[in-house]
């Protein structure tokens, strides 16, 4: 086991790192944050996941991740409902974002155009599911991950002429949609 990254700087992130025993490996890319497990049905247990988190900086991907960590470190509930993301929602969202970030970064056209992963705005629904919204002008993309495996994840897209959802949700699909808001 390698030591934790030294420049994990903000208190909420420290808290998460401690809570979930995140082990950091030598990063293969500046923004690897990989949850190595495809089985969403397992009981949430972050000790079982291998998470690469070299550091979080100021780019769009890390700014999005930081908001999830802040919610995880915050109050469990409020007058509206469950405020803290459920373990299922955390795990699934981190996995999707990680894979979307990799797909986004690996895309030749994105690289040629110098496009970086866009910053999303994170909130929870009243059950502890995670909602992330990306906006650019009249274009909107939302990733919605339910509180439990009983719900349905989807990606919502909207511009000035059409809207709809995709229930095919994986990193590549999310990366494809996110190009629309760059």
């Amino acid at each position, binding site marked *: 086991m390698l030591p934790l990254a030294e420049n994990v700087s903000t208190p909420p992130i420290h808290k998460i790192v401690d809570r979930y025993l995140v082990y950091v490996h030598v990063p293969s890319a500046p923004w690897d944050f990989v949850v190595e497990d495809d089985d969403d049905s397992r009981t949430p247990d972050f000790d079982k996941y291998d998470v690469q988190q070299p550091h979080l900086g100021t780019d769009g991907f890390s700014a999005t991740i930081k908001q999830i960590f802040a919610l995880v470190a915050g109050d469990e509930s409020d007058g509206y409902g469950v405020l803290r993301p459920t373990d299922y929602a955390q795990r699934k969202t981190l996995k999707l974002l990680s894979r979307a970030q990799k797909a986004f970064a690996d895309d030749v056209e994105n690289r040629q155009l110098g496009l970086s992963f866009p910053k999303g*705005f994170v*909130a929870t629904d009243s059950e502890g599911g995670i909602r992330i919204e990306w906006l650019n002008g009249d274009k909107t993309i939302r990733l919605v991950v339910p509180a439990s495996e009983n719900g349905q994840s*989807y990606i919502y897209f*909207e511009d000035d002429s059409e809207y709809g*959802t995709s229930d095919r949700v994986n990193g590549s699909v999310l990366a494809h949609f996110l190009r629309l808001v760059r």
Partner: protein
Amino acid sequence: MHRQTLDCQDIVLRAVLRSAYIDRENNRVRSDAFMLRPLPKDEDGLSVSFDCEPAQSASQFKKCYGVASLHVGRIRDLGLDVVPDDVTHANVTGLLRSDDNPAEAEHFASQLAKQARLVWQP
């Protein structure tokens, strides 16, 4: 005795009960604030108030991060309605839940968010 109907020129107020539901960079309310919660919550629709000041609307809640105003007529333009059930309380009806129809639920929430004007913050 409360009003049975609201006029199109009436304004209703939506209390925003989560900090993350306000986009402070752009001083607007996010669509999240206009999504119906799973049943039995929001059973009668999306809760709004009327015939009161924004601060009064906010004071009904232990913690309120903002109050947004919407025109009843513009809500009706979306095919929705606003139905009073108390002296200063009404419900926006016709919205769908994301469990039933996520595309329409999200679209209505987007449209309401675009119409909403943030008129009070603590």
